[in-house]
């Protein structure tokens, strides 16, 4: 048990040991066959990208068509010349949409829509295999939510849809988990590249948010997918860029201080936004109303508020645009719409509408930036040529902490505007916003949600993988179980015959009663005054594992144990003894997982 002894030294030693005892397999990126296989993966990435991009285009078009049909878009509201009916529709459409969404979610096992957080969890735990059925129901319910004007985003559903399609592709081709993770990232990258018309942002988003490591092996397929998505977007989707900037405007040096400050304050706005969503989710749990009816309630409240402030309906594209125009809103109005939009989005997402957090964050951030811009304008008396800079800085300061993607936010600004001046201004805001929000709230809303569901990604993928791998995978019944009434001599014989040093006491009802060592049994047999029954022999101090104990926790237990194996006991079944896991199995599994991660993250092909 040399392995066990060194392992007890802690994690550092583990890795050293891993190198010694499990030499990395010869890198698979050598030789013509590996190259062909790798190119096949790139091709698959492009294919996934094409399918995800087309799905994204169809999704976006369907949302726009529904918004026209259901009197959500300002254009359709303006063209509809029956004021009383329009008021009725403003309340009825989100309410009925919520009703449909609630019913749809009853068909998902978790009773909630799947979202980017589920994608992150699947990749970070190397589980992959996103469920196609829950994925398609979530996409459908997101379509209904967005179509009926709920204050939710469209990019989250697009990302999840792309990821689900990618995972489906990997499963159809019977690829392994590593490749499954890569095709998921491909779907994500293509969805972002298509939706924003920004291929670089798509690639970086897939790495920054989903994969969370950089490997050349993943880069090429993801880049191919993003590129295909971009090509499809530029040829099919004809949409205006999010921002336009007058070429002449360049911020004065002191304005960068303002951009930095917007970053710091934006982190707080992002925190308020995330906590609005999380808070409503918590409160909704305490409601007596059935979960499937909660979205309908949220829709009704949203519709009633929209009668007063229609800007909060839907994704808010018009509101976003107006917020970049100096003078479109007064300062008080900006604050009002900002607060209501946060409340509306918290309400919709917390009560169970399906949709993303990014588009509302864009609106909220831009309103916040516009507010800062108009305040600075008022106090400095400066002309409003750089107003759009403030709007964009506010936008990235709020969005990047929410999705945990500072680089993606910057790249979106860069690719949409092509303006270096604007990107540097945004950089100033992101510099403060992301770390401050990460310190105060967490890496992203997705991470906070996952942590609440029991998946802590704060220490990276290595721990997350080990934490989600149950030790019971290595359970064996290759052990000696002893009844407490067994005579000591008989027990010694049994252990010797089985060539084991430890036996496990299991009573009549199958309950685990402790662990005895061969040495203690021998001593008892030799002693004339000692115990005659196994049950009377002193048991070894031995931690027990539960069937759902993770590999990570098992490793932690091993730190204080020298012995052969750890018993697995099921407290749910009256402490029933399930078998044992050998310490060497735990160590081997630990090393194998580390090795797989290492190959995935550092392999080239």
């Amino acid at each position: 048990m040399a392995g066990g002894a060194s392992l007890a030294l802690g994690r550092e030693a583990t890795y050293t040991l891993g190198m010694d005892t499990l030499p990395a397999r010869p890198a698979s990126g050598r030789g013509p066959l590996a190259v062909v296989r790798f190119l096949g993966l790139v091709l698959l990435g492009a294919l996934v990208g094409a399918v995800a991009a087309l799905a994204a285009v169809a999704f976006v078009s369907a949302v726009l068509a529904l918004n026209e049909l259901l009197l959500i878009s300002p254009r359709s509201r303006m063209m509809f010349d029956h004021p009383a009916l329009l008021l009725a529709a403003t309340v009825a459409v989100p309410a009925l949409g919520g009703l449909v969404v609630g019913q749809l979610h009853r068909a998902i096992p978790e009773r909630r829509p799947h979202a980017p957080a589920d994608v992150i969890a699947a990749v970070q735990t190397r589980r992959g295999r996103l469920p196609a059925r829950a994925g398609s129901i979530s996409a459908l319910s997101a379509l209904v939510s967005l179509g009926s004007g709920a204050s939710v985003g469209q990019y989250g559903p697009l990302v999840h849809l792309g990821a689900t399609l990618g995972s489906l592709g990997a499963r159809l081709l019977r690829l392994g988990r590593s490749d499954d993770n890569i095709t998921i990232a491909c779907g994500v990258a293509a969805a972002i590249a298509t939706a924003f018309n920004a291929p670089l942002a798509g690639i970086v988003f897939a790495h920054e948010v989903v994969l969370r490591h950089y490997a050349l092996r993943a880069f090429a397929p993801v880049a191919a997918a993003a590129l295909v998505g971009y090509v499809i977007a530029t040829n099919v989707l004809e949409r205006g860029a999010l921002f336009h900037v007058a070429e002449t405007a360049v911020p004065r040096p002191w304005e960068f201080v303002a951009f930095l400050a917007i970053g710091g304050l934006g982190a707080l706005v992002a925190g308020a936004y995330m906590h609005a969503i999380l808070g409503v989710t918590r409160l909704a749990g305490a409601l007596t109303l059935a979960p499937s009816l909660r979205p309908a309630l949220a829709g009704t409240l949203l519709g009633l508020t929209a009668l007063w402030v229609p800007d909060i309906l839907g994704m808010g594209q018009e509101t976003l645009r107006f917020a970049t125009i100096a003078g479109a809103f007064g300062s008080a109005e900006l604050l009002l719409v900002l607060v209501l939009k946060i409340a509306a989005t918290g309400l919709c997402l917390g009560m169970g509408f399906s949709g993303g957090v990014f588009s509302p964050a864009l609106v909220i951030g831009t309103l916040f930036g516009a507010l800062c811009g108009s305040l600075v304008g008022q106090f400095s008396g400066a002309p409003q040529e750089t107003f759009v800079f403030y709007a964009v800085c506010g936008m990235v300061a709020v969005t990047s902490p929410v999705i945990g993607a500072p680089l993606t936010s910057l790249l979106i600004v860069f690719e949409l505007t092509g303006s270096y001046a604007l990107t540097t201004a945004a950089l100033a805001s992101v510099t403060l916003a992301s770390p401050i929000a990460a310190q105060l709230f967490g890496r992203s809303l997705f991470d906070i949600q996952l942590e609440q569901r029991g998946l802590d990604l704060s220490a990276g993928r290595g721990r997350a993988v080990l934490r989600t791998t149950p030790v019971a995978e290595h359970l064996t019944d290759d052990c000696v179980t002893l009844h407490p009434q067994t005579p000591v001599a008989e027990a010694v014989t049994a252990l010797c015959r089985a060539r084991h040093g430890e036996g496990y006491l299991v009573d009549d009802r199958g309950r685990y009663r402790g662990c005895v060592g061969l040495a203690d049994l021998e001593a008892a047999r030799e002693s004339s005054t000692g115990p005659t029954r196994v049950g009377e022999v002193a048991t070894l101090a031995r931690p027990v594992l539960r069937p759902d104990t993770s590999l990570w926790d098992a490793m932690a237990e091993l730190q204080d144990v020298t012995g052969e194996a750890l018993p697995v006991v099921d407290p749910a079944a009256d402490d029933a003894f399930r078998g044992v896991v050998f310490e060497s199995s735990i160590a081997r599994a630990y090393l194998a997982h580390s090795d797989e991660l290492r190959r995935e993250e550092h392999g080239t092909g």
Partner: protein
Amino acid sequence: MARGERSRWPASAPRLALLWLALFAADPGQADDDALTVLSWGGAYERAQQAALFSPYTAATGTPIEVAQYDGGLEGLRRAVAEGEVPWDLIDMTRSEAMAACAEGLLEPLSPALLAPAPDGTPAEEDFLPDSFGRCAITHSIFATVVAYRRDAFPGKRPDSIADLFDQRRFPGPRALQRTPAVNLEWALLSYRVPHEELYGLLSTRRGLDLTLARLDELDEIRWWEAGDVPPRLLAEGEVVMASGYNGRFFDAMVNRGVPIEILWDGQVQEHETWAIPRGAANPEMARDFLRFATTTDRLADLSRHIPYGPARRSAAVRVTTHPDSGVDMRLHIPTHPLNAENALAKDEAWYARTLGRIQDYFRAWLEAREGQ
């Protein structure tokens, strides 16, 4: 339908002349009670139609054409249909007004089946540009509302973006704008650099409308025009330095009358000019016959030689040549030429057809408030 069959004959000159003689010899007195009354826009536009459409039609069929002056709007048509006294057989109207009139039941339905194929046999449905056929109207030309400016008004500078229309600092001087919300609203909002795709969505909000009117309010002096011949005149007389107007009128002033103006093509708003037959017209069959004649490839190409409107037929667009008097290459002056159409705005006709009344009320209220000051 003797007349309908005749017009389907190949339009070779000797046969037409023969026909014309035969008609007049046979029935010289029918002209007056059987005249076709066309409601059209007057000025250079009417002169071009006279040369390319009306005279050749009369020459080919013997039917005289009387032209009534039209300044847009539906009030006259509405009244005439309600009273059952429709004095016109055919109206040359913008597509947006045709759509609104059609929705109100003021127009006869029109089928594209009555149109002649292209000279090479391409059916009309494929030859016409997209969205040319409405339920009650058929597009014959594409024109644009553009801004023109006096070349001598801004020494050393020239406007190159539609936002310059509202830039009184760099381009000072009075402007002439059409007394309608259409086009003015679009340009005012475009001056905030919003993308074309989102324009009508933004104009659909109170906030968007307020922004546009705030922009219009920034102009010190606006001369409002209603008839299309006014803006070139105001420019020619130096009353204004910039004016909105129809590209055909500006062309006429520029090329035929040597007025020192230049067209700003950025932000041009393209519109379809259509033929429509009013409900209760006295001679609807004759009107259809003329419509078929006037939308043949030859006639459309000829019309674009007289006035720089883009023909609605692809086969006609490639046949556009030089202006008959000045020899100017007309392809460079039609709104659909790639160089001119780069930043063209397609007017959202469906939006206008449904909102015109309310938008006009809103605009009028603002106008009255402005003029009351």
